[in-house]
């Protein structure tokens, strides 16, 4: 097979290393010091094959590395443990050359065998990884998933520094998948020694290693002195204190005891903080790959009628809903958030027009309105948002009954197709990786419509599905034609209005006065809340 470097590989393997690989942007950065971060909930696990929470996602990012990584503060891919890679012409064979001399925290050198072991482990059903599905395009995945094989036939160790991964179909998102935490490289001996408790005693190649963990109280990471990227991390250590209410965390930040409240600024305190110039100056605002939406179940009347779905879209006053959350969002008109490649600039969507909405209802023969239910997660501010939606729909004669339930119950009702409408808040789609396909497959594609699937609209259009598949068969994820196709996919979805896209939440990270580093590191789209490897303290 004739191999050539495709354009993205060129851009990533050669162009980027100059700009991104040597990312030591802040001349003022000083090494040393420790910081304190708080969270309300426990850190469940630091096993990269399993961790999928708000809290542990960025911790795992700092303890482990995968073959691919992102330029800090951006959505741009860069090589991680891989030094370079080649992609075959048809986009199905990826050959990664590993960096020399990278060691795990236990001192052993990382090799291609470890990469293979890690991919076999994450896809093995015994591991029960919530991320296993991301690797479905690797050849041999189906056999491993069904238990017929215990090793991916598509992952071959060529030599200790080279690994070749063959896909069963072209997958434009594959490099992003290799940048997910689930693709982190772990040492077999440490995993086997710890068994099911590997998540409590993680060993990786990352910038930090676990120093201490008192369950329910605190977790301490310390600098990996032998980290393979030169010059980072700057911090000597990070202490995560858990079990801290966001309000308490904010008070402690104001007293100088905390550097970053991991759960953000509590909604009730937001205005107070932003009205105080001193505190507001330490809040970093940024976009995030998030969309809040209402699903309309197209399999149940009256939402099986397009006119009704359009009417609901036109009836929602998005600006007022944004006021409910103190203006911490921008109105949305399509599934993709504005910072996502493939976002359609200039797309109007449905404007707020209650009169037009009434006309649409009349057109559908429902001029007198109807009664329906809206499912919503029961934590603030979601029930208040549901009430705003309820009022908007009452104005066009639709009577909405609010079902405010625990997260798991809403997900269950959505998966079973029992919920006519669901407000996605609290369970919403924050992208796993910065690629437009991530907002389609499970939540708008036909594959997610099965019982228990995440496509709560039960929306399935074969022709749109086909276009999505075609877009993902490109080899270059950033190819303009590919992004145009994705833009078209979402415009066609909106033409059928299975969702009401309501807003794209902004991120607000608050930090203590002594925290230094580029603002972008505090709203890093990949390492949430903060890119720990690159921030520093000034005192």
């Amino acid at each position, binding site marked *: 097979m004739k191999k050539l470097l495709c354009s993205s590989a060129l851009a990533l393997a050669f162009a980027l290393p100059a700009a991104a690989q040597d990312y030591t942007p802040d001349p003022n950065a000083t090494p040393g010091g420790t910081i304190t971060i708080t969270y309300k909930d426990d850190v469940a696990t630091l096993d990269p094959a399993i961790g999928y929470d708000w809290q542990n996602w960025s911790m795992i990012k700092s303890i482990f590395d995968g073959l691919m990584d992102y330029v800090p503060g951006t959505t741009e891919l860069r090589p991680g443990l891989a030094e370079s890679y080649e992609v075959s012409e048809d986009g199905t064979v990826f050959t990664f050359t590993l960096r020399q001399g990278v060691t795990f925290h236990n001192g052993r050198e990382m090799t291609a065998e470890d990469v293979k072991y890690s991919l076999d482990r994450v896809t093995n059903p015994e591991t029960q990884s919530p*991320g*296993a599905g991301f690797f479905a395009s690797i050849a041999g995945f189906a056999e491993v998933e069904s238990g017929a094989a215990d090793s991916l036939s598509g992952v071959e160790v060529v030599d200790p520094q080279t690994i070749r991964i063959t896909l069963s179909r072209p997958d434009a998102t594959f490099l992003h998948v290799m940048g997910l935490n689930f693709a982190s490289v772990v040492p077999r001996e440490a995993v086997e020694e710890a068994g099911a408790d590997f*998540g409590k005693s993680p060993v990786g190649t990352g910038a930090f290693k676990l120093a201490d963990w008192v369950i*329910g109280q605190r977790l301490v990471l310390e600098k990996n002195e032998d980290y393979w990227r030169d010059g980072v991390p700057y911090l000597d250590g990070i202490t995560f204190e858990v079990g801290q*209410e966001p309000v*308490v965390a904010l008070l402690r930040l104001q007293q100088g005891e905390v550097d970053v409240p991991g759960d953000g600024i509590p909604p009730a305190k937001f205005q107070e903080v932003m009205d105080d110039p001193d505190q507001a100056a330490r809040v970093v605002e940024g976009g995030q790959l998030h969309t809040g939406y209402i699903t309309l179940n197209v399999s149940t009347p009256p939402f099986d009628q397009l006119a009704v779905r359009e009417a609901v879209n036109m009836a929602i006053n998005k600006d007022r809903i944004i006021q409910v959350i103190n203006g911490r969002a921008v109105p949305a008109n399509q599934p993709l958030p504005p910072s996502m490649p493939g976002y359609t600039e200039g797309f109007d969507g449905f404007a707020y027009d209650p009169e037009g909405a009434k006309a649409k209802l009349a057109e559908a023969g429902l001029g007198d309105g109807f009664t329906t239910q809206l499912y919503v997660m029961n934590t603030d501010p979601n029930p208040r948002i549901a009430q705003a939606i309820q009022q908007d729909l009452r104005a066009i004669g639709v009577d909405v009954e609010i079902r405010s339930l625990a997260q798991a119950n809403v997900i269950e009702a959505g998966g079973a197709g029992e919920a006519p409408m669901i407000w996605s808040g609290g369970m919403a789609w924050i992208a796993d990786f910065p690629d437009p396909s991530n907002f389609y497959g499970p939540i708008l594609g036909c594959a997610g419509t099965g019982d228990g699937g995440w496509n709560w609209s039960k929306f399935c259009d074969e022709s749109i599905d086909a276009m999505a598949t075609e877009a993902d068969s490109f080899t270059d994820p950033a190819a303009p034609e590919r992004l145009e196709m994705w833009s078209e996919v979402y415009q066609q979805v909106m033409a059928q209005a299975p969702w009401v896209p309501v807003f794209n939440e902004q991120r607000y990270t608050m930090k203590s006065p002594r925290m230094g580093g580029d603002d972008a590191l505090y709203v890093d789209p990949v390492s949430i809340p903060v890119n720990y490897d690159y921030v520093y303290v000034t005192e």
Partner: protein
Amino acid sequence: MAGYLFRRVLQAALILLGVSFITFVLLYVLPADPVRQIAGRSATQQTVENIRQQLGLDQPLLVQYGRYLAGLVQGDLGRSYLQRTEVSTLIASRLPASLLLMAGGILCELVIGLTLGVIAALYRGRPLDQGLMVTSFVAVSAPQFVVGLLLLYVFAVQLGWFPIGGYGTAAHLVLPAVTLGIMGSGWYSRMMRSSMIEVLRQDYIRTARAKGLTRGRILFRHALPNAILPIIAMIGIDIGIFMGGIVVVESVFGWPGIGQLAWQAIQRVDIPVIMGVTMVSAGFIVLGNLLADIVTPFIDPRIKMR
């Protein structure tokens, strides 16, 4: 005595069995699928089925319950679905904090409640008594999360006397213990007041007074020990009430106890953890009541064990 103890222990075991069954059934019928929480949103149907099978969640209810019970009698509470850690490890690492908090809470409610109750009884019918009783009413009615945040704001943030939440030193314990104890202190002050008034009316108090004993001696030697008796049995019952209270108080103060663990597990349908915390809590409640029943006759010989 031995027969009585045996019967009570048997009773306790049956209660625990009942609690485990009811909780298990409730979690089973809950309209939320733990496998979905484990498998994540990108999972294929095959993955979901694999996990369901591995966890034995594809089995009928009674088989699942039987398996749980078989583990339980061997002291195996299973592994957390989400943390993948032994439930017994999670509970063991958090239980000391909860027990400490409860001990602090009981101490607070007794000290505050009994003191106020005695004072109110001595000043019966006067403004001080009326004021104290209104206060106790407020204490009983105030929601714990409000009391907790209020105390936190005033004594930790404004005055800086105590740390703002957390765990570790005696200073960390004060505010959560007071928050937990304040509701009970309202009850105790009212009970202590009426119990004390009752005792002060007794003939032997009049005799003591007639003998010319000092007010203090009458109060501490004769009245208090008798008035306090009915209160003792209440402490055992308090443990049950506190098991509910710690969920709230631990959340407000960031106290690393089992209440916090239970709260997080409930939100994520982590059934083994919910079961584990429920069983351990139920065990303490049953034990508390048992101890109260056993101790009372020693303090008051008028009560006999049968």
